[in-house]
C-alpha cells in the first residue's frame, strides 16, 4: 500500500507570553490509500494541532519547527501559502466538530458545496450546483434538490455534518481529516454519519484520519490507531493488536479508564497525575514518565520510537 500521507519527525511549537509550548514532538505516521487511521488521546494531547499543522491552518503563534509531511509527493511543510490553499479543499480536506459553527450561516448549503466545485474543479455555476445536489444525495440528504436552498439553521446537527462531509469530499480529495466529527451528535446519528464517511472512503479510495477521544469509536471505525499523549505518538498499531495487546503503559491506562468494556464501575481505573506543562524548558524525554509506574532510570536518558512487533510501534523502554 503506497502512502498518501507520510509524516516524519514533525514538531510544532507555539510562542506564547508565558513561554514556548512544545505542542508536537517528532510525530511520525503514514496513511495509505483507502486506509482509515485514528488519532486518539485526551484533551491537550495534540490531536487537533496535528491536523491543523498538516493543513497549514496554525495561527500566527504556531510554527512547524522540523519534519516533513508529504502528501502525494508534495511536502506540505515546504509548500507556499498559495500552494497550500490549492491543496486544501482539493487534495486534502477536513471536517470539524460542531458543523453548524463551521458552515456559513447566511449561505444556502447547496451554494457552499458549489463554491468548492467552482473554485477547485473549475465547474460552471450551473454544473457546480448540479454537482452540489449530487453530493447532497450521496451523503444521504433526502430531497436534495429542494434541501440545497436550505440554510444551516434549518438542518439538524447530523444533517449539518453531512453537508460538511459533502463539502469536504466534493473534489474527491486524497486525504480526509475528520476532527471529532461526531462529538455532540447522538449515537444513532453518529453511526449514520460514520457509515457515510466509510462508504465515501471505500468508493473513492481516500485516506482518512479520524481524530477522536473515543477509543471505542476509533476501534470500530479504523484499521489502525495512533495514541497520543502530550504531543507524542506513544503507540501506533493495528487496531486489533492495540486493543488485545497494548504495550505502552499509557495505552493500557487509557483502556483501563474507558467505560465501554468494563463490567463494573469499580473495575475502572483513573490515570494518576496530569499532563506535563508543555512550556517547561526541562521537559523530560518521555512526557508520560512522571505518571508512569514502569519508569526506569533509562527513561530520563532519551526517548526512542521502535517497532516492537510487526505493525506495532511504541515510544517506551519498558513496555507492558
Amino acid at each position, binding site marked *: 500500500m503506497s502512502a498518501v500521507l507520510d509524516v516524519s519527525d514533525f514538531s510544532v511549537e507555539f510562542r506564547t507570553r508565558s513561554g514556548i509550548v512544545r505542542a508536537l514532538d517528532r510525530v511520525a505516521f503514514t496513511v495509505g490509500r483507502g486506509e482509515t487511521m485514528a488519532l486518539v488521546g485526551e484533551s491537550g494531547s495534540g490531536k487537533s494541532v496535528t491536523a491543523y499543522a498538516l493543513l497549514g491552518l496554525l495561527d500566527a503563534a504556531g510554527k512547524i519547527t522540523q519534519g516533513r509531511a508529504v502528501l502525494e509527493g508534495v511536502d506540505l511543510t515546504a509548500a507556499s501559502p498559495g500552494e497550500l490553499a490549492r491543496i486544501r479543499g482539493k487534495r486534502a480536506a477536513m471536517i470539524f466538530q460542531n458543523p453548524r459553527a463551521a458552515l456559513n450561516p447566511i449561505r444556502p448549503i447547496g451554494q457552499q458545496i458549489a463554491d468548492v466545485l467552482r473554485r477547485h474543479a473549475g465547474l460552471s455555476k450551473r454544473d457546480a450546483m448540479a454537482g452540489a445536489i449530487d453530493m447532497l444525495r450521496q451523503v444521504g440528504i433526502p430531497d436534495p434538490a429542494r434541501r440545497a436552498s436550505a440554510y444551516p439553521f434549518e438542518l439538524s446537527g*447530523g444533517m449539518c455534518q453531512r453537508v460538511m462531509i459533502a463539502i469536504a469530499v466534493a473534489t474527491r480529495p486524497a486525504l480526509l481529516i475528520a476532527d471529532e466529527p461526531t462529538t455532540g451528535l447522538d449515537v*444513532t446519528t453518529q453511526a449514520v454519519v460514520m457509515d457515510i464517511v466509510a462508504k465515501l472512503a471505500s468508493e473513492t479510495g481516500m485516506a482518512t484520519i479520524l481524530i477522536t*477521544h*473515543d477509543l471505542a469509536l476509533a476501534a470500530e471505525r479504523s484499521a489502525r490507531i495512533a495514541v497520543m499523549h502530550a504531543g507524542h505518538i506513544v503507540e501506533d498499531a493495528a487496531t486489533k493488536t492495540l486493543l488485545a495487546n497494548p504495550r505502552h503503559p499509557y495505552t493500557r491506562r487509557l483502556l483501563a*479508564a474507558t467505560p*465501554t468494556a468494563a463490567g463494573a464501575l469499580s473495575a475502572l481505573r483513573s*490515570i494518576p497525575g*496530569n499532563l506535563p506543562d508543555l512550556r517547561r524548558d526541562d521537559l523530560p524525554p518521555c512526557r508520560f514518565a512522571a505518571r508512569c509506574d514502569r519508569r526506569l532510570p533509562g527513561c530520563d536518558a532519551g526517548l526512542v520510537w521502535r517497532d516492537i512487533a510487526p505493525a506495532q510501534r511504541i515510544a517506551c523502554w519498558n513496555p507492558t
Partner: protein
Amino acid sequence: MIGNDPTPPGAAGSTLLDVAELSKRFPLRRGGFFGGGHTPMVHAVDDVSFTLARGETLGLVGESGCGKSTLVRLITRLTDPSSGSIRFGQRELAALPAKAFARDADRARIQIVFQDAGESINPRFTAADAIADPLRKLKGVTGADLKAKVEEAAALCGLPLELLDRFPHQLSGGQRARVGIARAIATRPDLLVLDEPTAALDVSVQVTILQLLVTLRETLGMSYVFVSHDLNVVRLLCDRVVVMYLGRIVEVGPASQVFANPLHPYTRGLVAAVPRLDGLRDDALRLAGDPRSPIDPDPNACRFHGRCPIGTDRCGTEMPALRRFAGGRQAACHYAEEPP
C-alpha cells in the same frame, strides 16, 4: 392539600419520587390572521410516569430532543407542568408554581449538577462563594458555620481547601466538576439530578468523578436521576434506566437487563449504535432517519412509527401502552415480546 411543611424523612427503600402522567406542552405562537382558534403545541413531555426509590440511581437516556431536559426541569421544579403529578416524599409538588418553589423549604432537598460547571458557575464567584451560595440562600447559614459547611462539602467532594479561593477559570475541568457537585450537595439534598455531569471530561477524569458520585450516594444517602448520552456510563452507574423517545417513555427496567436485552425496538437501535471496543457492530439494527415532529403528534400513533424497523399498520392507529414485563421491566411496544 399542599402543605408548607417540609416532608418528614421517610424510611430507606421507600419511594422518594413518584411522577405520574406528567406532561409539558409548549405553545407555538403563530401570529397573524390565520392563527385561528388552535395554537399548535410542542409535546415535550407526554404522559410520563415513573418512581424513584430512596438510595436508587435512575438513568434517563434518549436522543436530543426526546424531552430529557424538560423532564429534568419539571422534576427539579424549575418549570411548571401542563398536567400530572410529582410526589416528593409525602408531598405533591406539581401544583406549586416554580417561582414559589424557589423559596420553598424543599428547594434545598432537590438539587441539580449541571453539565459544564465552567459555564454553570458564576465566573465572578470563587469556588467557596459558589458552594456557599445555596447554603446562604436556601438554609440561611452565615458566618463561621457557613465556612465550616463549605469546607465540609469541599472535603466530601475531594476538593483541596487551598483551591476554594480560586475562580472557575483557574480550575481544571475535573476540579470544576467537583465544585459543581459540592455546591449541589452542600444543602444535603435527598434527590440529586445530574445532567450529563461528565460529558465534558476526559475518560481518566470521568472515572474519578463517577466513583466520587458513588461514594457520595452511599455516605449521604441520596437518590440520583442521572441524565446522559453515554449509555456505557449509565450502564455502570445506574440501578434502573428510563428510555425516552419524543416525549414519551418507551422502556423502563434494570439497567443491566435493558442494555443486555432491550425489549423496545428503539432501545435496540440505540444500544446497537454505541461503539464497541471489539468492533462487533450490529448494522442490521441501524436506526435511519430522524424522529418525527413533536408538534401536535397524532395521539393514536406510536411516536416511533415510521422509523421503527418492525412497525405495522396497527402502530399507526393504536398508541402502545407502557406494559409491564417480568423482572420489573416495562416497554411501550405492541411487539415487545417478539425476538428481534
